[in-house]
């Protein structure tokens, strides 16, 4: 808030910024969002810790090695990584002032996100229909909750990004919409980073003997 406040205070001795940093409101939002990501990181950290503690506690259910399917999680990973790339390109288009470019890249990102979630839902359904669900063992509880929390984050991101790209279409690129695009991008990249850890800690460590 208080653009006036800021202009009184800091005048214009700061570097020229890209559009999303051009208002004090935008700068505050972006900093605040970084801090939110820090809290989310701790949240995932705790889920990972729990997973690592119980990952060998398969009880009577299947173990990691018996469950995970290399092609599926590889596809999920490739799709999500690509979506992060398209999302980054979208931010770049936004900075260059190309609304069409930004919107279409964000749409591609959302579609990739949707196919990621689709694959993951499919994977979950496959496991549960083979009798491996949250109630089977501590390992499976932790697996579904860790990976599912990430999946919920991605779904939330899809809804959010859709809302933002609609706003871009309606309102155009401005000092108000630019930070929004940037922040949803940060969120998306963050989820990608978390996925890299899921990929390594859950899937790779799970299938490597």
């Amino acid at each position, binding site marked *: 808030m208080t653009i006036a406040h800021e202009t009184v205070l800091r005048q214009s001795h700061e570097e020229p910024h890209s559009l999303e940093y051009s208002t004090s409101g935008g700068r505050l939002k972006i900093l605040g969002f970084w801090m*939110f990501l820090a809290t989310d990181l701790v949240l995932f950290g705790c889920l990972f810790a729990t997973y690592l503690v119980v990952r060998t506690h398969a009880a*009577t259910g299947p173990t990691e090695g018996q469950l995970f399917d290399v092609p599926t999680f590889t596809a999920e990973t490739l799709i999500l990584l690509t979506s992060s790339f398209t999302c980054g390109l979208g931010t770049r288009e936004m900075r260059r002032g190309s609304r069409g470019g930004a919107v279409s890249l964000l749409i591609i990102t959302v579609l990739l996100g949707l196919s990621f979630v689709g694959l993951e839902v499919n994977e979950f359904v496959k496991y549960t229909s083979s009798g491996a669900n949250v109630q089977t063992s501590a390992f499976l509880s*932790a697996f579904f909750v860790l990976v599912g929390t990430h999946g919920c984050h991605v779904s939330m991101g899809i809804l959010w990004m859709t809302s933002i790209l609609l706003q871009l279409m309606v309102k155009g690129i401005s000092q108000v919409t630019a930070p929004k695009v940037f922040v949803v991008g940060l969120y998306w990249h963050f989820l990608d980073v978390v996925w890299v850890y899921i990929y390594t800690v859950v899937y790779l460590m799970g299938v490597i003997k």
Partner: protein
Amino acid sequence: MLRGDVQPTPFFVTGDPMILASDVLIALTLVGIVAALTYFKKWKWLWREWLTTVDHKKIGIMYLIAALLMMFRGGVDAELMRTQLALPNGRLLQPEHYDQIFTTHGTVMILFMAMPFIFAMMNIAVPLQIGARDVAFPYLNAISFWMFFFGAMLLNLSFVIGGSPDAGWVSYPPLSETPFSPGPGENFYLLALQTSGIGSIATGINFLVTIFKMRAPGMTLMRMPLFVWSIIGTSVLIIFAFPALTVALALILFDRLMGAHFFTILQGGVPMMYINLFWIWGHPEVYIVILPAFGIFSEVVSTFSKKRTFGYSSMVASIMAISVISYLVWAHHFFTMGAGPGVNAFFAIASMCVGIPTGVKVFNWLFTMYQGRIRLTTAMMWAIGFIPNFAIGGATGIMLAAAPADYQYHNSYFLIAHFHQVLIGGVVYGMLAGMYYWWPKMFGFILDDRLGKAAFWLFNIGFYVCFLPQYQLGFMGMTRRIYTYPAGMGWTTLNLISTIGAYIMGIGFVFIVLDVLYSAWRGERDVTGDPWDARTLEWSLPSPAPHYNFAKIPVITARDAWWVAKQENHGKLNEPDEPIAPIHMPKNSGVPFLFALAFFVGGFGLVWEWYWLAALGLAGVLLCLVTRSWDYNTDYYVPVEEIEHTEMALRRSPT
């Protein structure tokens, strides 16, 4: 005790005559409030001025009122427990009822009394002290408040609907799992804490950004008041600790609602993981609430000693050191769990290290008072009373931190006495000091000193009478969470003394309430805005401050800026030599209230496993998010005439 014979849980709790009586009282109070609001035509006022406000000062006041109410509720729980324990074989409360009461007492006092109290203080003081017009995200600030508020309501609701949780404020599994705690009580606990926890995380982020980005020009970090520094420490701790609580609670909820096996004994669950997660939050949490108290003591001691704080930089360094170390000591809450000598030794030594920066702070307060011109106002009394408390609390903490010795103390009344010594003697004393200190700034009148001191002495004496015997009871083998004890243990006299102390503290609390009522009626008005001849920026403003705080943002050239202005510049801050400009302010909004209400509805649905209601709540939450995201009309400019008019009315010429 295993309650295998699951009966369908009645919706309304009716069995106990005491609960029934409070049901009636609550219903009557509600009817009374509704009738009064309608009769005085205050509904609109309530909505416009309070429920939709985004002004940090008003949000602070709402936090304060809520904290005092919750202190009353938790206090009643405490008096009931002490009454039960006053004599052997007490039969005032049934065992199940006693379990519920110690659970809600702890939960309410830490999450719904201490937390809102610190949020009250930081909302009231931080923006004013750094020369800002509001926090960085005023709208989010309102969300935080309402999330806290509805979380607190959800927990308190369990008292009359569904039954209170009874697995302790720490809610350890397997006790808190479905087989041992069937029924909705435990769910209330989990969802209430989850709801208010989201609000707390948002507050941590909000204040950190505020302090980093919204300071007046010239207010470098090392020129900030120490209270602001303490809020940096608290906010950082909130950001890194609260997500652990979120996860701990969520995982139990998965166990309870979906039949997962995180913390069950069956199917490979590990209950110890919960205990770790809980205390990874839990220990930082005790520092989250004590650091602001430290900050308040720094302000109060320096103001009422008429000296700048001794050792400012070492104060800053110790706040930061405490924030870091307190994150590395969590396992001292379960030395007896058997993690092995290596782990226990690490956590024992780390715990003892916290004593060092804390000691530095205590000595700095003492040196600030040394050779100062001390004025014994009520706020100062609370600050001075705190020092011996914390000396004892710190010393007993170090005793507990000696891992081998802790096998003896753990979960005895010695532990109970320790944490009450620091939580009451530190946090509550600090918050009351802050309340007496900033009260004129909030409300424009000063709390009566005579009544205030009477309250202080009653509370302080009652406090020692109540808790010193408990150390000894701990040595004599009395364990915590017992609902009664037989005669002939040798515990009777000390327990009776302790209960008398608790009653004296209760009377002390009544005196504080009397003080507020009396002073609202005839208290001295604060016409100068600076009743204490204080040192920091908030006292340069009229009391209460106008909603935009500063008509012009001052330029800061030194620590204790207002004191310097009074000494060197005839009480005028350096203000930019320009005419008043329109001020950019956030608009009020009802969405934060509705957003938290949606959480409340969804949470209530999950408590009863009514998933349709939970889905409805979630839909409400999403709707609020979208509404806000599409709202491009969130702020406005206060016109110059209005500012000039306000400043004129406050008798400050807007030159």
